Each structure stands twice: as structure tokens, then as C-alpha cells.
């Protein structure tokens, strides 16, 4: 029914951003909206009283440090990719993946710390919210780690270099965003718990 068409020309792109990168930014907007909804729900609920007071697990300071460090290593790796320095590119990526996993383990220990001080997922919403924040963020972070591992594998296939940075740039954007998101959540909790 439909005819085969031959193409001779080129898709014009009025703005210079790669469509996939642009789509990633839009995806980040949706993640922002989810957490904006949850954190504002937290404030609304908190203002109604009957709110459990407890200390935040100290390990959050450690995991925040880890996530900051992982952003630094990834940035280093990205700069290396720009300069076609493959050894430090791979090393940086590997470090970032390991730090990402370390962060997730740290978040797990924060849950153990919460249980130790009798703050459970089931109970007063003050505690439940904390589990939801950390859990949902960890879920996104796992997707980020998977993304990084995919990029890491492609660095070994020499698919990431100064002329082909799109995937690498997207992974970097996503990872920095997730780190920033965690820092926002942590600050928010420090200010509002």
C-alpha cells in the first residue's frame, strides 16, 4: 500500500542540541516533579502535627560525600574522553561505578540505622516519607549505575572518544543530576525534620 521512498536530504535541526539529549532533560523534569510532589507533600503533612521526631542517620553525611566524589571522578573521566585519554577515561568510569554502588550500600545502612532507632516504613508518616525519598532515589540511582556500566562497556569497545561523546555526555548529565537530587533531599531533610 505505502510506497518505498528514497531520501536525499537531511533533517534540519533548528537548535543545536541533540534530540536524545533534549529528551533526557525532559525526563529529568519529570523526576524533579515527582520529588517536588513528594517533598511538598511532606511539608503539608508535617504542618498538620502528629509528627514523629527522630535523628537522621549520620551515614547520610558519608553517602553525600561519596556521591559528590563520584561526580568528580565522572567529570574527570568525561574530560579525559574529550582528550582521547582512554586509560583515565576507563579508570574514572570504573571508579564512578564503584562509588555509585558504595553509595547504594550506604543508603542501605541508613535504613538499618533507622530501624535501630525504631523508625519503620510502617508507622508515623514522618518515617515512611524518609524511606520513600531514599528508596525512590536509590531506584533512580540504580538506573544511573546501569547506564554508567553500559557506557563503561562501550569505552572498552572504543566507542567513546572525543568525536563520539553523546552517550557519555548523557550519562554525565544524568549522574550529576542524581547526585544533585540526593543533596537536595538531604538538605531538605536537615531543614525540615
Amino acid at each position, binding site marked *: *500500500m*505505502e*510506497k*518505498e*521512498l*528514497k*531520501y*536525499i*536530504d*537531511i*533533517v*534540519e*535541526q*533548528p*537548535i543545536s*542540541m*541533540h*534530540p*536524545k539529549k*533534549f*529528551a533526557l532533560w*525532559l*525526563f529529568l*523534569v*519529570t*523526576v524533579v*516533579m*515527582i520529588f*517536588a*510532589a*513528594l517533598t511538598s*507533600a511532606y511539608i*503539608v*503533612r508535617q504542618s*498538620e502535627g*502528629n*509528627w*514523629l521526631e527522630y535523628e537522621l542517620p549520620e551515614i547520610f553525611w558519608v553517602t553525600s560525600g561519596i556521591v559528590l566524589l563520584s561526580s568528580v571522578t565522572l567529570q574527570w573521566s568525561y574530560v579525559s574522553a574529550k582528550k582521547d585519554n582512554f586509560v583515565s577515561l576507563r579508570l574514572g568510569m570504573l571508579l564512578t561505578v564503584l562509588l555509585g554502588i558504595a553509595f547504594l550500600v550506604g543508603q542501605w545502612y541508613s535504613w538499618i540505622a533507622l530501624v535501630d532507632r525504631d523508625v519503620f*516504613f*510502617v*508507622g*508515623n*508518616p*514522618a518515617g*515512611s*516519607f524518609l524511606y*520513600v525519598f531514599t528508596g*525512590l532515589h536509590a531506584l533512580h540511582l540504580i538506573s544511573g549505575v546501569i547506564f554508567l556500566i553500559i557506557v563503561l562497556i562501550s569505552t572498552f569497545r572504543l566507542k567513546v572518544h572525543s568525536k563520539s561523546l*553523546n552517550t557519555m555526555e548523557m550519562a554525565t548529565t544524568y549522574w550529576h543530576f542524581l547526585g544533585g537530587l540526593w543533596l537536595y533531599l538531604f538538605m531538605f531533610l536537615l531543614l525540615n525534620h
Partner: protein
Amino acid sequence: MATASVAHHDGAVHDHHDHEHHDNFITKYIFSTDHKMIGKQFLVTGIFWAIIGGFLSILFRLQLGFPEMNLEFLRPLLGGWIDEGGKLDPTFYLALVTMHGTIMVFFVLTAGLSGTFSNFLIPLQIGARDMASGFMNMLSYWFFFLSSVIMFISLFIKTGPAGGGWVVYPPLSALEQAIPGSGLGMTLWLVAMTFFIASSLLGGINYITTVINLRTKGMSFSRLPLTIWAFFLTAVIGLLSFPVLFAAALLLVFDRSFGTSFYLSDIYVAGEALPNTGGSPVLYQHLFWFLGHPEVYIVLLPALGITSEVIATNSRKPIFGYKAMVVSMLGITILSFIVWAHHMFVSGMNPFLGSIFMFLTLIIAVPSAVKVFNYLTTLWRGNLIFTPAMLFSIGLVSFFISGGLTGIFLGNSAIDIQLHDTYFVVAHFHLVMGSASFFGLLAGVYHWFPKMFGRMLDARLGYIHFWLTFVGVYMVFFPMHYIGIAGFPRRYYSWTNFEFSNMYTDLNMFVSVAAIITFAAQFIFLFNFFYSMYRGRKATQNPWRSTTLEWTTPIEPGHGNWPGEIPTVYRWPYDYSKPGAAEDFIPQTVPLSQTPESNLPHEQELVKLELEIMKDEAEVLVANESKH
């Protein structure tokens, strides 16, 4: 300009050359990445849901209009939901109302409307080969399909589908023991909605990216057809509001299945105290309506965009106030996010907050009135051609006015105390959001059917369909205003036992009969749709003598839309009946330099610039040709 177009020979280009088109049945009709096929998939699925959703409403209208009726004849279909005495089961009635709302709002008027026309029209009208990501687009449809399957299965389970109303307010929806409809049906509802949200977001991200990144040469934002503006802003609204529904649903899932207390506090069910403390059901309402209100505009804006296009084309006049239309749509987009609490005036919210939301709500009347004014002034003294699409568009304007006016009543927090949760509300939103959007959907199908299937819909059947539906809709919803003002509450299974409502038997019977006739009239359309797909009159390339880009493609465009180069755009999309021009329309692809007889003074000045650009591009083209 020249360097820019040479520089972009990477990425997206090669995708097209790489996979040569060896379409088999599966890649062409099922796992298609062609935006046109995906649009048609959304349309057909939407039509399927519209039949189901409409049929469910007929079932509960039977109960409301004929409370004494013996429904034994429905037993083969509904089985145990018809009791011994031939009456509809009350819990199933609640499920019917819930599912009717859910299906119509999300599956028909969001996926069926936005999904169909954003997919189908965005690349065609902006001059793109396809969406930014065909794969994501395919995924969007298949998430929607999965969501549909789950929601459909929930209709047939033993405890019945979700029954807490389409807004699924906790604690009713959170406690399985509350009503049968809060059991497995509710779980399936939440799972289905999760997939639906994923589908909407995938689609929305694609629409926005495509509109921003893939417009053809010359297609500036000020030359976009109003349909594209509408789809674009709809996608923006969806992108910002659907994640919030996801957050609300997530917390509801935790409350239902994990025992948390986000929305639950101090509840007794059947004399037994539940352990949940500290939750807030109003919290859910805030989160839900932060999506729920923008959702109204997700449903309505595409219909308004389609109407702009159809009315301008069939009035043979430029749309009146193009910029005002864009600005008012932008205004509606922004306002839609800051009015949600007008759904909660009687939920125990601070009355001062109510006054603020009332004020913001009433402001929406301004951009809405601007739009109505522009539709009417476009029609004013135009050379009207009453195609079925045109009739449905005018019908939309009618519903938008009559349903919009009652919105001003409901937006007042004091009057809302009387009218809240009555049939007045039902009448209001069925006119302004339900019927208006549905008419936009139908107008779009009638208008773009030739582009979708290469054949024309039968106009005579279209006229019959229009008049039956138009009159039918008013006969169904107009009387509801009266019973609503009298205090008749919505969602009630039985009303004959109450002093204040038992005198409305005749009115309810009238409404039910009108509903059945209106529903039956839709089968005329269904016949027309499927018959014309195969047997309809063959379409010409530009049957409505329209200016926009989709009519410059072949009658049945292949994957890639234009054989050869994508056309360049030289003018806005509404050059109808331009004084001096030979024809009463000038397509967007005609350069100003070719129409000196009809150019306005400021356009004549642009001709020189245009000729320069064209000269540059001819050089680039020659350079490209030698490369290939």
C-alpha cells in the same frame, strides 16, 4: 545558514539510510516506529475504549432513568451483577461510574486524542521525517496497550473493577475491606495507571523534543499551525503533572499494600479500629488534583487546536488573532497549575485559601473567552464550508460556551457549597470537557481521515452523525443542570426514596433515553469509519484546500513522509482568501517572491531576504548532491 545546514550531516541522517524499509506485517502494523501508524494505533484503541466507556454509561443510565426496570436481559453479559430481582448490583453501579470516568478521561480523551493527533500531525505539520525517537514512540503505544489490557481485565474479575470514583480518594480506595471495589480491582487500576503514566510521559517527551528540534527550514514558532501549539503545550502540561499523579499513586500503593499511613488516620471499619495513625486524606486530594486539574486541559487543548485549524480552513479566512490564540493557550497552561484546590472547596480546606483559588480560577475565564471570541470572529463573514469536521468544530465552540459559563458558578467557593457533587457538576464537565473534547476528536478524524487512510469519510453519514450527537448531547446534559441545582447528588445508586429527588423520574427517564439515542448514533460513525477505510471515495492530495504541510505529502505517505526533500516553509499557515491572490489559499510552501500580487507591504520587504536565503541554499543543495 549555509554552514549550519552542512554541519548537520550526522546522527539522525544516517538512521534513515541504515535500515532500508523491508516492512513485514509485524513491523508495519504492530511494532511500528512510524508516527503515522502509531497515531492510527492510538486512534483505534481509543475508539475501542470509547465504545466500552459509552456502553458502561448506558448501563448506569438504565438504572438511573428506569429504577424499576427488570434488567434480566443483561444477565448473559453481566452475570452475577444482576441480582435475583433483576436489579443492577449497587457495588457494580459504583464500579460502572468509576470505570466510565477513568476510561473516558484517560484512555479516550488523553490517549485517544493526544496520542492520535500529536503523533499523526506533529511530524507532518512541522515538516519532519518522524518523531525524535521512533522507538520511544512505539514504547509509548505499547505501555498504553499494556495499561489497557490490565484495565480491561479488571472489568471481569470477581470483586469487580475499582469502585471509589475516578478520583479514587482514600481512605475508601485505600482499604480493601471498605467496599468490594477497593480490592483487586483497585490494585489493577493502580497498576494500569502506572503504565499509563509511563506511556504519557514517553509520548510527551517525544512531542516536545520533536516540536523544538525537528522543525523544517523556515518553520519558526510564529509560523506553527495552532494545532502544533496546542499539542506542544498539552505535552508540557502532561510532563509536569503526570509525575505528581505518579507520586500520589505510589503513596496510595504503599498505604494499600504495605500498611503505611500516608493517607490514613484513626479509622474504624466494622467496629474495628485500624492501626494507622498520622495520615491525611486531604494530602491525597492535593496531589491528585495537581494532576487532575491540568488533566482537564490535557484533554481540552488538543481539541481546541484542532478546532482552530478546521475553522480557519473551512471559513476560508485567516484565524482571527493568531497571537492572541497562542498567548491565551499559554495563559491556560500556566493557570491550569494554580487552580487545583477549587475541586476541594468543601474538603475542609482553609476558607481563606479557598478565596485565593476562587480568584485564580475565575481568571481562566479570560483566556477562554479570548479563544471563543476568536473562533466566532474567524467564522464571522467567512465563506463557510460546512464539512462534517466544520460542524463538529462549531459544536465544540457551542459546548465550550455553554459548559464554560457554568464553570464560573462552580468556581465560586460559596456557590460551590450548594452545587458541589451534584449533577450540576456532572453537566458542567461533561459539556465543557467531555463533549467539547470528544467533538474535537471527531472533527480531527473527519478532517484528517483522507491523510490517514487515503480515502474520504462519507459526508452524508457525517451530517447525520453530527446532528444526532449534537442534539443528543444537549438533551442529555442540559436537564442535569436543573436537577443539580435542586441538590441531586452524583454517584447515587438509588434516589427514588428521597423526598427532595423523587419527583425527577420523568427528567431522568428523558436523559437516559437521550443518552441511548446518542450512543446509538455513534455506530453510524463507526460504520462510516471502517467502511470508508476500504471502500470510501479516493481522496485527492489536498481535499480541503488547506495551507499546511501535511497536504503536500503524497496521498498515502510512506515512512519518511516526503519523497525527496522536506519542503521549506515561507509563510504562516493561515493565508486564506488573501486579497489579490489567484486561489483562496496559499500553501506554506509557496515563497513570498512567487506571490507579488498578494504580498502585504511588510512581506514585500522580506522578499529580498528570502531570495538571498534561497540562493544560499541552492548552493548547499548542489554541494550535498555531489557528496552523495
